């Protein structure tokens, strides 16, 4: 267990930012932390590294509260927001000052500067940095201690397409090395490309904790598109308690609640001609929208909890790759 949150609650005055959040982040994977803006992602991440104290509950990193580690930057590298930097200092001096707290040598500072591609501007003051450069500096800070676990809050925010691809490759590279990556985003599509596992929250509550694949399966009501000259007749045959059939154009049906195999069998049994029989998988974006529409209705079920087991195998695969 890399990160273990138990019953985390954070209240600011009478506003509850995080409510009874329990989850674990497994080692050696990229875990996406997903939720709409204001869902409590940043608050949760701040609690993980001890910047905010939970109102109730506990969160540990590598088995201990973050603050109790002798070398916190070695355990967890964190980028909570790109601009956690004094604007009057150069990027290089900023990194040197942070490195000094852990006796990290200058050559490691040079390493991370090169790694994030800031060599050319490292001696310039951070105040003049573009959003993308600030983001890269934030990532350099997170990697400074060569940490086992990396936590990044919205790392692709404000990056150009080239920067987005760079972050994506970086995250995959870190996971391939066996590191744990916990990365938040409000962009479902971005997570689909980088994360293997998803923890989804909405309004401060856990909505789903599952692999990306299971998440889509669990969240979406997959449908089947059917075209037939006898659409009306087929519709009557398919309708049932769990099955709904919609028809947006003549001769075409959208069936939810039945597998395409079953529809094919029913059609054959009644001698109905089919022109088309296409399973429609909901996109991650659809699944996300559907889940976050009503955070309370989609509280994690026992099934979602059990799915963390499946993630264990993913973690194993990640290690083998490394």
């Amino acid at each position: 267990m890399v990160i273990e949150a138990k019953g985390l609650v954070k209240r600011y005055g009478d506003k509850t930012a995080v409510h009874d959040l329990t989850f674990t982040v497994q080692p050696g994977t990229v875990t996406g932390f997903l939720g709409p803006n204001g869902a409590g992602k940043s608050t949760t991440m701040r609690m993980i590294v001890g910047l905010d104290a939970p109102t109730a509950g506990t969160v540990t990193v590598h088995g201990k509260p973050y603050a109790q580690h002798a070398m916190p930057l070695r355990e967890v590298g964190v980028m909570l927001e790109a601009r956690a930097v004094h604007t009057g200092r150069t990027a290089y001096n900023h990194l040197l000052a942070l490195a000094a707290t852990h006796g990290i040598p200058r050559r490691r500072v040079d390493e991370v500067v090169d790694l994030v591609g800031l060599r050319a501007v490292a001696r310039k003051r951070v105040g003049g940095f573009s959003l993308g450069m600030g983001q890269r500096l934030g990532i350099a800070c997170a990697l400074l201690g060569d940490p086992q676990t990396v936590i990044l809050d919205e790392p692709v925010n404000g990056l150009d397409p080239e920067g987005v691809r760079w972050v994506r490759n970086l995250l995959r590279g870190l996971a391939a090395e066996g590191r744990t990556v916990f990365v938040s985003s409000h962009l479902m599509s971005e997570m689909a490309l980088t994360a293997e596992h998803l923890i989804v929250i909405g309004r401060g509550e856990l909505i789903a904790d599952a692999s990306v694949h299971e998440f889509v399966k669990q969240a979406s009501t997959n449908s089947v598109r059917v075209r037939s000259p006898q659409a009306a007749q087929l519709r009557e045959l398919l309708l049932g308690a769990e099955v709904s059939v919609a028809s947006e154009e003549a001769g075409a049906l959208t069936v939810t609640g039945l597998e395409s195999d079953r529809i094919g069998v029913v059609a054959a049994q009644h001698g109905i001609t089919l022109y088309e029989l296409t399973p429609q998988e909901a996109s991650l974006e659809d699944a996300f929208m559907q889940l976050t529409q009503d955070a309370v209705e989609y509280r994690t079920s026992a099934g979602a909890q059990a799915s963390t087991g499946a993630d264990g195998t993913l973690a194993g695969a990640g290690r083998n790759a490394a």
Partner: protein
Amino acid sequence: MSTPTSTLDRAVGPGAEPAPRAEAHPVTLRRVLASEWIKLRTLRSTRITLAVGLVLMAGIGVVVAAVIASRWNSLGADEQASFDPTYSAMQGHVFGQLAIGVLGVLVVTGEYATGMIRATLAAVPKRLPVLWAKSIVFGAVTLASSTIASFVAFFGAQAVLTPHHLQTTISASGVLRAVVGGGLYLTVVGLIGVTLGALVRNTAAAITTLFGVLLLLPVLIDLLPSSVSDHITKFLPSNAGDALLHVHQQSGTLAPWTGFAVMCAYAVAGLAAAAYLLKRRDA
């Protein structure tokens, strides 16, 4: 861009033998001191503000001495009798303390204003070493530099006074204490600035509070009936500390070291409150 896999040291999965990784050591006060020293010397604003404070401390005493010397014959008899060539040289502390105090505030609030504090506290999550290190580094730098400025002010002023035979010497009774006191006074004002910055966490509010305490409070207390104000005035931070800069104790003031101890007590109390809040508040 760079390829992370080739540059980063290979890490390992849980339970496996650790692979070679970049060098790191446990966080200690000594390392946090090194970090704060880098932070202090790598900001242009720090160097400028400190320089302004030191120039004011060193220069104004000399100017005051020159003015008094040139107008000596037109001064009244009591003015001439109460003339203290050392304290005149120390007059720069009234202005120097504003720059040094602001610098103390900025050492802390600069981090809150820019968000830097979150990077700092993520690196040192036990938090208190950050406050101690800031106080020690800033205190040491201020003490060293403002003591030098204080001596420059003293010898500069005596050089101006010598042609008029109004000078004193560093070996005269109480003079060395007063000149060393100039550096000590500025240092403690700076530390009070640090504690106000840590308590208020906002540059404008902390500076306003600092100036209010140093400049406004003595004036306000003086508006009270003297039967009341006489008991309070001498205990105000600036007045208590000022006692150390006088060669001869003034009426209605504390003894030099007693006064300085009172001033230090404010700084220590403020630091204790700041430490308590730093531990408890969200960053």
